[in-house]
């Protein structure tokens, strides 16, 4: 079975107090931030790696981005991917349609029984990409998958709905799933593992090799500007001995009708 | 086989017969001494063979360069007059049997220091004084491959020494050092006195630890802060085999500002630690050893010693407890030297 996982590189903003919007007002200040693999994609990769451990799966990890994006693919290789392909194109400013066009074109060139995406990205978080690619490929999909089990020619999945309700499907392969966090426990990738992955081949392609032209990648949605949300007005810091603070908190929650 | 070089005729011409007349454990006049040593030389029984506490001292007393002590031991064995009970002899002989595999022969650089069977005392050869020495016999599990065997002089078993020693010298020589400092002066005595006396080849030069320490201290002269303490030296039986190196004790003391106290039992009159005597077969040996220790200790106390300086680990084991109970601090010579150059002595483990 052939599994393709699409991954993305995102800035890690967890270490800062607040994000800073840059001068263009169309992006955040990235220079002080380190990059990492998109959280959701790590779960997708782990799901794929677990499939590979169970059965004879060939695993390919793909991404679209400039050369520093190689590091997320190295990570995928360290997690067990057999192949890694990067389409060399900086699409940070591009819209979801453009990116999904590239990814769909790439996946089409690869054998694929199962295509996995993270359910959304940590930076722009549109949650559209996987679904759009599925549509372009013309294969069935399920979004926000919280468990999956591959059978003969099909995959059984649970999707997460509101308030923790689950929806179960059997989907025929080939299919595309977008993976929710919590579906598994992504393994730790050791620095040694990544170093060993440095020795593995990483394939680079251009958009033109995929037969794509600039018109085909023209944006359908344009980002106008980024803004930080207005500060909330009511924040109350409760301090004091635990017995008292707990009591006050309970009172507040009761009054708000939460308890 | 190896034969002891002993010339009985020199004893006949000896004017003092110091070997026996100076013995601190037997009261013997000159006439008796000459008669008894001649009897012993001739292979006859003598009360000396029965009463000897095996303190080695007659090796030093002999003015003729003969080997009265080695002779006594050979005769004790030949005539089956063991100074110790049989189980102790068997135990002693078995102690020297290596049983944990072959030693690893590492290339030694010059100079090398051989720990002999005291590999677990490596903590005593730390610090500047020993920097740069390559060490032979570092592994307590393999140390009996480096055992000089001379302890068997106390056991009336020169046969064991002669049987095992050539193999031991060979093992030490394999390390390739030309000059070897011996941690224990019994090893030093073995290679510089006993081996020549019985004709065993020694393919290396031996250096006495105290000579080495003396020279090292001179190199580190700038670091020496005079200790200004009163010391008594517990001279071990083995040092009787290298009386020419005994002066280094005082030389070192002078160099590091340690003051030897005025004692009765000092230098040639030094008393045995009692470790060997206490187990001997002769009636009353345990109490005799206790008496020797008591006299030795009283002498140190009366002389006002603050530190009792040791050369031999066996003496240390026997006497460190008793001297501490008298308020005197027991210390190995190397530790005393380390103290003098501002290092922390390794102390007692």
């Amino acid at each position, binding site marked *: 079975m052939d599994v393709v996982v699409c991954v993305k590189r995102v800035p890690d903003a967890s270490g800062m107090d607040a994000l800073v919007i840059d001068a263009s007002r169309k992006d955040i200040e990235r220079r002080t931030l380190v990059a990492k693999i998109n959280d959701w994609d790590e779960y997708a990769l782990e799901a794929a790696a677990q499939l590979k451990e169970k059965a004879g799966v060939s695993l390919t990890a793909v991404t679209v981005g400039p050369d520093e994006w190689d590091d997320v693919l190295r990570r995928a290789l360290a997690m067990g991917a057999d192949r890694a392909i990067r389409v060399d194109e900086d699409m940070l400013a591009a819209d979801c349609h453009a990116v999904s066009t590239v990814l769909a074109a790439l996946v089409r060139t690869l054998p694929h029984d199962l295509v996995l995406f993270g359910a959304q990205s940590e930076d722009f978080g549109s949650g559209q990409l996987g679904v759009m690619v599925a549509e372009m490929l013309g294969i069935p999909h399920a979004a926000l998958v919280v468990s999956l089990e591959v059978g003969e020619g099909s995959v059984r999945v649970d999707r997460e709905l509101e308030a923790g309700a689950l929806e179960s499907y059997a989907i025929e392969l080939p299919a595309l799933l977008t993976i929710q966090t919590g579906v598994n426990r992504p393994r730790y990738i050791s620095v040694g593992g990544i170093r060993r992955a440095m020795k593995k081949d990483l394939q680079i392609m251009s958009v033109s090799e995929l037969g794509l032209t600039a018109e085909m990648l023209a944006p359908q949605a344009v980002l106008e500007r980024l803004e930080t949300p207005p500060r909330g007005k009511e924040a109350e810091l409760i301090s004091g001995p635990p017995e008292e603070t707990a009591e006050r908190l309970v009172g507040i929650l009761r009054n708000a009708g939460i308890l | 086989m190896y034969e002891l070089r002993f010339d009985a005729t020199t004893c006949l011409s000896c004017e003092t017969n110091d070997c026996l007349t100076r013995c601190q454990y037997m009261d013997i006049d000159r006439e008796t001494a000459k008669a008894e040593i001649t009897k012993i030389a001739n292979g006859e029984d003598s009360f000396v063979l029965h009463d000897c506490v095996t303190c080695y001292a007659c090796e030093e007393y002999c003015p003729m360069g003969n080997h009265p002590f080695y002779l006594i031991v050979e005769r004790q064995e030949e005539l089956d007059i063991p100074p110790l009970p049989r189980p*102790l002899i068997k135990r002693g002989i*078995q*102690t020297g049997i290596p049983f944990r595999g072959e030693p690893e022969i590492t290339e030694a650089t010059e100079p090398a220091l051989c720990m002999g069977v005291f590999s677990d005392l490596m903590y005593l050869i730390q610090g500047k004084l020993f920097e740069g020495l390559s060490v032979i016999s570092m592994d307590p599990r393999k140390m009996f491959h480096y055992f000089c065997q001379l302890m068997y002089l106390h056991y009336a078993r020169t046969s064991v020494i002669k049987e095992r020693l050539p193999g031991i010298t060979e093992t030490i020589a394999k390390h390739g050092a030309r000059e070897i400092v011996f941690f224990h002066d019994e090893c030093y005595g073995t290679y510089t006195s006993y081996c020549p006396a019985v004709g065993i080849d020694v393919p290396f030069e031996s250096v006495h630890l105290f000579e080495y320490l003396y020279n090292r201290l001179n190199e580190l002269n700038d670091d020496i802060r005079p200790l200004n303490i009163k010391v008594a030296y517990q001279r071990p039986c083995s040092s009787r085999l290298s009386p020419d190196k005994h002066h280094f004790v005082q030389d070192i003391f002078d160099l590091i500002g340690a003051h030897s106290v005025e004692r009765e039992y000092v230098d040639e009159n030094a008393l045995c630690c009692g470790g060997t005597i*206490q187990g001997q077969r002769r009636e009353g040996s*345990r109490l005799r050893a206790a008496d020797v220790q008591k006299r030795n200790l009283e002498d140190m106390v009366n002389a006002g010693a603050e530190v009792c300086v040791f050369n031999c680990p066996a003496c240390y084991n026997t006497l460190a407890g008793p001297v501490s109970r008298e308020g005197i601090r027991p210390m190995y010579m190397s530790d005393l030297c380390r103290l003098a150059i501002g290092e922390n002595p390794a102390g007692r483990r």
Partner: protein
Amino acid sequence: MDSIYDSLVEIVGSEHVSTQPEELYIYSFDLGTTEPHRPDYAVAPRTTGEIQQIVRLANREKVPVVPLGGGLSLAGLAVPLKGGIALDLKRMDTIIEVNERARYAVVECGVSQGQLTSYLERRHPRLMHSEPGAPPQATIAGNVAIHGQGDLAQPYGFNSDMVNGLEVVLPTGEVCRFGSCSISPYWYTQHPLPDVGLFLGWAGTTGIITRVSIKLFPCKEILGAGQFVVEDEELIPELVHRITHTEMAHDLVAFSQAIPPFSSGLHHLTISLSADSEKELDFKMELIFDDTLGEYIRRGDGGFLGFTRGQQRPQVSKTSDWRKGGGFEYVGSIMPVETYPECYRRGREISERHDIPYTVLGRVIGMSHAMMFSWTYAFNRADPETVRQAREALHESDDLVLELGGTIWKPGVYGQKLVMERMDPNTLNLMKKVKQLLDPNGIMNPGNWEVGR
């Protein structure tokens, strides 16, 4: 869900119950050659009340309960042979009382030997208890429950003879006290009440000891040991008889072992002495080493190796590393002292037949009334063949004990069978009745001392 698990959690709290594979793995092992058996639950209670509830639960559910102290019997006595609850008692670790004047200590069942020794050293330096040769995590209660002996065995006998009182949770859950503590706040004597002592030597099959009062003895300023060596094993019974006659030693042990070579074929007698002054020490030394042993020295048959001050803590766990294999087990026996020579010779033969360096030891109990004689066999945990050899040697040693007219000390299942085969049928029947009376559901450490139907 597992209702027994839930009940156990309710009794001791979730942190002190486990059904996880890791705990079940660890608690399935003895440190010796006994095959592991997994418990179904590992539980670590803190109070007698909790133990009561656990035992009642076990009765309701018919689940075995296997009490465990230090886990160092090496005979497999705390291996859950039939599964059930492995009851780790080491959280019950309070030293409840030391009565300086009446010389006793009351301890909870998880108090270790090392803990009591250290406690006495720090707070009651004039008192000591009889510490066995086991590693210090061995417990006081576990040791008396198997009739252990310690380093005061020569003057005062078995540690189980030093029990002044017990608190026991019966297999049916009642708490009973025995000795003066059953009627008085003092835990100072087991006597003179009607004797219902049914808990010592039963290896936890008749109840769980939760508290023990143990006798303490004078601890003198100077402790130390002299060593005496002989080659002829036939001399040992005679020497022991003569030394015990002096009433001067506080521990007397003879040993011989192949490794290190110095001890091979020789018998070392370690004679421990204690004294409050140099005068007392000199007197005792003279009496033993000169007046009593002097003639052996003069004849050349025995040698004095010197006297070392200070008391060595048990170093027995080093035995496990003789074959660099992390394991050893021994057969302990209670023998007449006169059998020492035969025990040594036959033990040496067994060892040599199984290619194990021999190690034998005899510790005198009482005034030469008996000795604990042990044959120790080291094995390599990573090499099943050596484990098998050791197990065979152990079984042969068990057989030998009975052949020589001795009794096996803390026998494992194999030894228990040998003992029961030889036991007077009426005694055996009484044991059976006692067991049925106390433990009608057979939940306590089943597989041990099973008299059969």
